[in-house]
């Protein structure tokens, strides 16, 4: 399979579907595992890394995951292809930039990735649209158990699954939810949320994980404690307590926007529509924020029945959309524009590398064309 087979559309987990979809974009669970009879990667020679890679690749490719799987030799791929995989959240930035033999086994529908030789020998991840952590947990546990039948994981009765970094030891689980929280930012309450999350021992990161900013008002919130709390407890606390609370917080901010700051809301949505429909050069950063405001407007209309002059204009644009579902102005289309105009996606789909100005021009054109179809 070629990367261009998947690069022209978005993956299922980014489709804008699932429970609490107006705020929760996606749910992800990751497990960190290491083989018992090998050193951690920092102490491995290239030969030992290659041996681990071959062993785990063979095991993973033999599993029945209910979908076609393909393998990518991450170390042999071009920078562009590696960046593409990072943009699609199929591998981490760390995996893209690491050195030595490493690879990824990916399910065709992109709900599952196994990164081999990332920071640990094996990092499994399952992704789903909306708030679906229990379903992610069930699926990743099943996959992990299938692997466990074929390899011996490094495990200690006292410390659980042993990982290269002691911050992941125990269950090795990292539960992560991507949230769209533009209203908290507009009402100036995002800092309050960030410090509350810190107090609850949660990590909040930007769109592409550690060290990245919250582009497009998307935040990833994840657990930090992996030792002494079971997988079930962590998942249940996230799904039943933390995420609904955070979602309520954002919902309250959206209501506040409607009642007290509707001018601010309308200004953001109207500017986003005007710029996206007319700009001829647009950076990825700017496009992400403008698309975020369109997403907010549509979600507030569909989930809260919000009706302001700008939201009405946005919905009028949507009403004119052609019958073709793929081109309708909905959350899926906005997410598609969002992902397909990221730098590596643009270049891969264009068939060659482009300098930033050409990328900005192409991005603006793709967005203009998509919005023009609505008129």
């Amino acid at each position, binding site marked *: 399979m070629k990367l261009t087979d998947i690069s022209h559309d978005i993956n299922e987990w980014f489709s804008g579907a699932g429970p609490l979809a107006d705020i929760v974009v996606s749910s992800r669970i990751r497990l960190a595992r*290491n083989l*018992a009879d*090998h*050193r*951690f*990667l*920092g*102490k491995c020679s290239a030969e030992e890394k290659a041996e681990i890679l071959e062993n785990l690749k063979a095991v993973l490719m033999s599993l029945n995951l209910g979908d076609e799987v393909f393998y990518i030799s991450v170390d042999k791929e071009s920078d562009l292809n590696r960046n593409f995989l990072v943009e699609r959240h199929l591998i981490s930035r760390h995996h893209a930039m690491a050195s030595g033999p490493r690879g990824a086994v990916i399910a065709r529908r992109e709900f599952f990735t196994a990164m081999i030789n990332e*920071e640990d020998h094996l990092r499994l991840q399952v992704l789903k649209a909306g708030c679906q952590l229990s379903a992610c947990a069930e699926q990743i*546990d099943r996959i*992990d*158990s299938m692997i*466990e*039948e074929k390899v*011996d*994981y*490094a*495990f*200690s*009765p*006292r*410390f*659980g*699954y*042993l990982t*290269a*970094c*002691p*911050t992941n*030891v*125990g*269950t090795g*689980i990292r539960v992560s939810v991507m949230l769209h929280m533009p209203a908290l930012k507009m009402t100036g309450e995002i800092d309050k949320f960030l410090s509350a999350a810190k107090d609850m*021992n949660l*990590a909040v990161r930007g769109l592409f994980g*550690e*060290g*990245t900013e919250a582009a497009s008002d998307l935040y990833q919130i994840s657990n*930090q*404690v*992996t*030792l*002494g*709390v*079971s*997988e*079930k*407890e962590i998942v249940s606390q996230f799904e039943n307590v933390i995420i609904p609370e955070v979602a309520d917080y954002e919902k309250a901010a959206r209501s506040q926007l409607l009642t007290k700051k509707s001018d601010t809301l309308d200004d953001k949505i109207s500017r986003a529509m005007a710029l996206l429909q007319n700009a001829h050069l647009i950076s990825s950063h700017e496009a992400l924020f403008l698309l975020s405001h369109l997403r907010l407007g549509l979600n507030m209309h569909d989930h809260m029945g919000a009706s302001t002059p700008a939201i009405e204009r946005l919905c009028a644009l949507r009403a004119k959309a052609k019958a073709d579902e793929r081109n309708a102005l909905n959350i899926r289309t906005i997410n598609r524009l969002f992902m397909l105009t990221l730098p590596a996606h643009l270049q891969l789909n264009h068939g060659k590398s482009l300098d930033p100005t050409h990328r900005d021009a192409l991005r603006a054109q793709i967005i203009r064309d998509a919005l023009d179809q609505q008129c």
Partner: protein
Amino acid sequence: MKCQICSKRTATIHLTEISEGVRSEMHICEYCAAEQGIAAQSQMSINELLSHLLAVQPSDEEIFGPSEADQACPSCGFKLERLRKEGTLGCPLDYQVFEQALLPLLERAHGGKTTHCGKVPKRIPKDTQKLVELSQLRQQLEQAVRGEDYERAAKLRDQIKQLE
């Protein structure tokens, strides 16, 4: 507040230095900070954070005595100083070899917890499975006692006795 170096831009970086009991402050802008080689880093990776955290802790010698600090893992040759620098261990055996040194770090990173609770591989020997079960039951017993749920504590105590 204006930058103390260029006197033009707003000072966004505030440095406090205490040297020989004397405190001095410096307020500069990001541009001048970069010129002076002072990086303004807003976000750190967990590994970086960990190595920074470890760097401000007492030295290995202070905590474990000279022999512990120099100790090397017989399997991979890993020494504790590497954890300070890179935030990662050398091999699975290190958790056993450096257990005492790791406990305070694990406690800090995992909200006071130091014993695994959760999934156990099916392929591990029966004896090890029993050990895990015992350790998890002891943890639950501790929680039950702390929560003054003595009925549950008594049940857990019986389960532990039976397993032992």
